[in-house]
């Protein structure tokens, strides 16, 4: 991994973009919102065929043993299309957890199924994830405490501001792993989830900007395209700047997670690119560096995506405020992902701690 995607990674992202463009993700999300996960699970299977679901699963368990940067590229496309479902949980956090905790029986049961897209997993991990997202559509539900990983029993559901999302209370069940070593694994697995969440936000922000630009090019008022008005031009320019400078933080966070020693099981093989090593600001504590850089990426991607959301709605006007138009799928997703996987305030506090003061 470098701070720009490799040609192979760009190709992978392009494949996913075509795959999701061919699917009616909007209709899938509407069905998902009604509690019908079948079309969504079908998309999930196709994504698994393309390799998305096995990126965080080691090759020995049927996965691809990809790097965090591969996850970032994939998640950005999933966010770009506002795909519903427990993406960060099932594609990143849970496989990372299961790879490092428990026993081989557990791994052989779940990891190949996750990689193949036949199993979808979700996760509660208070305080960042007080609920398990979309447990109704998941086959495996975990509960991660600070230093323990447990199976979870699913409780009552809550509707979300994002219609294509349902949140479930969970109760801790059988313990899979506990203790000091587990704490480090949990921290790393959650950071993988945060990384994927940040990538989804960046992708969603990019989609919102693209949609707003396209609309501003064609919508006419006062005898000209609204994209000719400075108010529209300058607002979208600011969005472009925010997205442009969030992306390198996201890629840098992926590099930092690659260097994190708790990564041994999955991506150690990618850590030796000399160029990559050039660009990481190291304090000598790889775990803290990774936490800091992941948090910085989440803050910046959420900020950029929220700017994009506000701007895109304002450019669209009333039409963007209708369910029918579909812009709302991105608007609500962005707001929800901003507060999930750690709020901006919580992530800023982590950066502050790394800067030497809480």
């Amino acid at each position, binding site marked *: 991994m470098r701070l720009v995607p490799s040609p192979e990674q760009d190709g992978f992202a392009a494949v996913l973009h075509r795959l999701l463009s061919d699917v009616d993700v909007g209709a899938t999300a509407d069905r998902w919102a009604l509690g019908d996960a079948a079309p969504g699970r079908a998309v999930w299977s196709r994504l698994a065929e393309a390799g998305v679901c096995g990126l965080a699963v080691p090759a020995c368990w049927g996965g691809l043993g990809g790097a965090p940067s591969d996850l970032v590229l994939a998640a950005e496309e999933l966010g770009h299309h506002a795909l519903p479902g427990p993406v960060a949980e099932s594609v990143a956090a849970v496989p990372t957890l299961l790879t490092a905790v428990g026993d081989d029986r557990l791994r052989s049961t779940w990891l190949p199924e996750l990689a193949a897209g036949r199993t979808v997993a979700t996760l509660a991990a208070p*305080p960042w994830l007080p609920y398990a997202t979309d447990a109704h559509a998941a086959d495996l539900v975990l509960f991660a405490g600070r230093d323990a990983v447990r199976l979870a029993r699913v409780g009552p559901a809550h509707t979300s*501001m994002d219609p294509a999302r349902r949140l479930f209370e969970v109760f801790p069940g059988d313990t899979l792993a506990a203790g000091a070593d587990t704490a480090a694994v949990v921290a790393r697995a959650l950071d993988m989830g945060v990384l994927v969440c940040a990538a989804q936000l960046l992708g969603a922000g990019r989609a919102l900007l693209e949609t707003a630009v396209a609309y501003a090019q064609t919508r006419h008022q*006062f005898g000209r395209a609204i994209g000719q008005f400075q108010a529209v031009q300058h607002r979208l320019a600011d969005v472009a700047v925010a997205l442009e400078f969030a992306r390198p933080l996201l890629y840098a966070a992926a590099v930092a997670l690659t260097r994190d020693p708790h990564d041994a099981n999955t991506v150690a093989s990618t850590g030796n690119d000399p160029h990559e090593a050039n660009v990481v600001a190291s304090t000598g504590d790889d775990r803290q560096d990774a936490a800091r850089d992941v948090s910085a990426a989440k803050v910046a991607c959420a900020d950029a995506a929220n700017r994009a959301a506000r701007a895109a709605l*304002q450019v669209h006007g009333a039409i963007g*405020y209708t*369910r029918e138009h579909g812009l709302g799928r991105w608007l*609500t997703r962005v707001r929800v992902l901003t*507060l999930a996987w750690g709020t901006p*305030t919580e992530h800023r506090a982590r950066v502050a701690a790394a800067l030497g003061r809480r």
Partner: protein
Amino acid sequence: MNLDLDPSARSFRDEVRAWLADNVPATPLPSVHTPAGATAHRAWERRLADARLAVVSWPERYGGRTAPPLHTLLFEEEYHAAAAPARIGQNGLFLLAPTLFTHGTPEQRDRILPRMARADDVWAQAWSEPDAGSDLAAIRSVARRTDGGWLLSGQKTWSSRAAVADRAFGLFRTDPQARRHRGLTCVMFDLRAPGVSVRGIQQLDGEPGFAEIFLDDVFVPDADVIGAPGDGWRVAMNTAGHERGLTLRSPGRFVAAAARLVALWREAGDPGDTGLRDRVVDAWIGAQAYRMHAFAALDAPPGPFAASVTKLFWSELDIALHSTALDVLGAHAETDAGWTGGYLFALAGPIYAGTNEIQRSIVAERVLGLPREPNPGAPR
């Protein structure tokens, strides 16, 4: 919020407060946009009217009390503080009625206002069209002259309340030769008349608050034209001022929302998070500013474009306030339908009643006196 009031205002405020305490339904009414909700909200309006609280500022003959503007502000504060039901009649009460007081005939007022005050007639507004959103002067719907009246044809959209309303008012082109702002006429029409069809539009917040209205040779009598034919733009601008200003979005609404935010923060906010604290404080300050601004306006009547200044302020305040509430709730916010619904509704604020971009141009050119942007079709 206690106000030390002169005896008349205090007595009015106390009456309103007591009546609301006795009468506001303990459980919220169903959504105003559903059939059951519309029925319940109409019944609520009749109870308000029976207590002579529906339209306190109107003359008594139309159901009001001829109350001074201060009383209207106090009524709104109490109403919102009590979390009383949404006003199903708001488009009539706050937009059409002020227009009729300025531009209507005595006959129109006598015929329309008493029924409006009791929600016997619920009104929708029908300004926008698919190609006339921000650029309202691009209206294409027409009113053609016919015997004793006009035949309306065309399509209106973003019509608030139309799905549950009885009647609507809007702008139609009566002189097809005239360009843009000219040749427009303000007309009232029956939403159940032959030739009218209404289709609800579902909003982001889940409510079908908007509708499209399709009109095909819908007859309206001359008596339902407001102002002179061809003078519709002037009439509409008068209405827009009310829409942007404090008649539709009174300070009481934001003062009550800020009080709820403060309560939420005291209950659920991280006490060590001073960044959050500062945003809660800013929302409270903003609501107070709007409130004090409105009280000040009682003594110094605002200028002709003041409603644009006001609209910019309350629409941004509303988003900041609700956004802060979501951040107080943190990871739990997305499951709180009250605050998330309020947040999504607030996001529409910079769009409806004339986008904030339009308002900023009006403030710049009309209030500050900056030179006009070279613009073939500015609606100002």
